[in-house]
């Protein structure tokens, strides 16, 4: 719950979104500059203008797709977090903490390492979706859909599920580790990391983000009502159980897409909706796109840091978000448990 005591005046919402768009732009520019060798804004402009020298080509072909992919994965994480917090009615709910990301990673691990004889791409998508969906339902079943949201119970259930899934994933990796190439991919997932996509991959990712935004927006009204509590949501015409089923389906799809493209990235799904709520208020019609914008900006920046901090090596994205997001989460948790 935010500490603000008054709502925004009705007209200022558009201004807030302009602010968020500007922040995303700044984050993209920073991320495009960041790297083993820092690119100045004038070099960026040259590359964007179609400069043919090797430096410009490298920026355009290697760095910019990576930056855009990072922002798009961040958007998925942000809006996924907003959906999760809405369904669980808890500002500390997050796909990573509640094991949904871990579930998606299990599905992806199985798809990559177990010779199922299924076509690679669809099998990976389907299995990571099923993993995220199943893990979310386990937590939802344990923490309870009906009662008052109990932060401690919810987080404990999530931690247990996430730990179990992590162990299962490690076991699968050890047991099926002859295929070293795939193992490398799975390993990089564990710590979170954006792969540099080709143009087709980037387009697919962009389409997934647009689709996820549209789907999540159809949940906005129901998530608003669910936030009033089960009984009041019912009083205002929502079937809470049926709606939660639908929302978890959408949330699992978003999480699976984010994990497939960016691995296990912690805390973005927690921070983005939080900041969004401060800026645009609790109603999900504004909260969901705002969370996507903030998530995009956050991951673009963190991915830039991951590429720039320890040259010539690259540190995993998940380390950066955990180092930044961990303290943020702890402060929120302390405040909530005290209240």
């Amino acid at each position, binding site marked *: *719950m*935010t*500490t*603000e*005591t*008054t*709502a925004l*005046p009705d007209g200022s919402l558009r201004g807030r979104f302009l602010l968020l768009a500007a922040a995303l732009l700044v984050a993209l520019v920073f991320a495009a500059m960041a790297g083993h060798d820092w690119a100045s804004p004038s070099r960026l402009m040259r590359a964007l203008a179609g400069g043919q020298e090797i430096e410009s080509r490298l920026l355009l072909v290697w760095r910019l797709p990576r930056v855009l992919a990072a922002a798009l994965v961040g958007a998925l994480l942000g809006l996924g977090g907003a959906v999760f917090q809405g369904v669980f*009615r*808890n*500002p500390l709910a997050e796909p990573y903490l509640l094991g949904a990301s871990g579930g998606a990673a299990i599905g992806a691990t199985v798809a990559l390492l177990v010779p199922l004889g299924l076509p690679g791409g669809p099998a990976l998508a389907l299995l990571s979706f099923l993993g995220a969906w199943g893990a979310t339902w386990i937590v939802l079943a344990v923490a309870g859909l009906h009662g*008052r*949201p109990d932060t401690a119970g919810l987080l404990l259930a999530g931690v247990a599920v996430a730990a179990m899934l992590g162990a299962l994933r490690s076991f699968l990796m050890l047991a099926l580790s002859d295929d070293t190439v795939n193992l490398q991919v799975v390993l990089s997932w564990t710590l979170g990391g954006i792969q540099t996509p080709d143009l087709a991959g980037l387009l697919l990712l962009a389409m997934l983000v647009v689709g996820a935004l549209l789907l999540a927006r159809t949940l906005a*009204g129901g998530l*608003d*009502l*669910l*936030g*009033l*509590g089960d*009984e*009041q949501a*019912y*009083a*205002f*015409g*929502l*079937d809470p159980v*049926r709606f939660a089923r639908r929302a978890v389906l959408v949330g699992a799809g978003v999480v699976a897409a984010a994990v497939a493209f960016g691995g296990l990235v912690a805390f973005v799904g927690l921070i983005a909706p939080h900041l969004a*709520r401060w800026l645009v*208020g*609790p*109603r999900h019609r504004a909260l969901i796109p705002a969370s996507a914008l903030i998530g995009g900006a956050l991951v673009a920046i963190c991915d830039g840091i991951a590429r720039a901090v320890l040259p010539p090596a690259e540190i995993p994205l998940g380390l950066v978000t955990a180092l930044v997001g961990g303290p943020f989460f702890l402060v929120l948790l302390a405040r909530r448990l005290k209240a």
Partner: protein
Amino acid sequence: MSAPSATTTGAAMRIDCRDLGASAGGTVLLDAVSLSFTAPSLVGILGPNGAGKSTLLRLLAGYRTPERGVIAWNGRPLAGWSAAERGAACGYCPQQFEPAWNYSVAEIVELGRERRPAGALPREAVLRESGLAALAQRRWNALSGGERARTMLAATLATQPGLVLADEPGASLDMRHRLALLTRLAAYARGALVVVVMHDLDLALRFCDRIVLLDGGRVAADGTPDAILGAGVLERSFGLSLQPETRRAGHDWVVGIG
């Protein structure tokens, strides 16, 4: 608030329930309750703690499914109404509400309106009629208990439903606001069916058209306030001896002394 116009939801709302039974953890909450309510009417549900008042209201609202018996709204079994249809036709105000998010008063009223935007009063009118205009942009965590209760009731009535089911809407209100609440509900009930769970005997006897007294999950009495008071059933159910006093003109409330 004035009575809803006949053009809003079904002008003459009617609820029938037959042989309702409910239990929780081996305890019988309701047993063989059969009642019919017809608009326009203000019905007070009274009874000691644990009598089954809230359970009855939840069953009537459809939030809880009865173990035995059937409930029909306007002759149509409740099971056949979708959640959206129920929300549009009924204003159900539960006893407890604890939003997970820090909504503003205006946002909650807006959420109440959206269940039936076509027949809803404009947001500003809802806020004004509930005396909440000055609090419109105030967020939940900055509201007092009474302000919260008034906000939820305003959101409940925003669509001018033909059926209102409210569970102790006055519990957290001070005397002045409780009186205003009952005055308002009584006026509203001139064009709608309003069923209210109450604890204030005096207000119930003064404002309700009909009183249903529950005790131990059964209907102990059902009738007009005068009949209920005269029958001595209140004394038996609550285990108290009561001293009826008539309020004199020009005074708002009788306060017992000594």
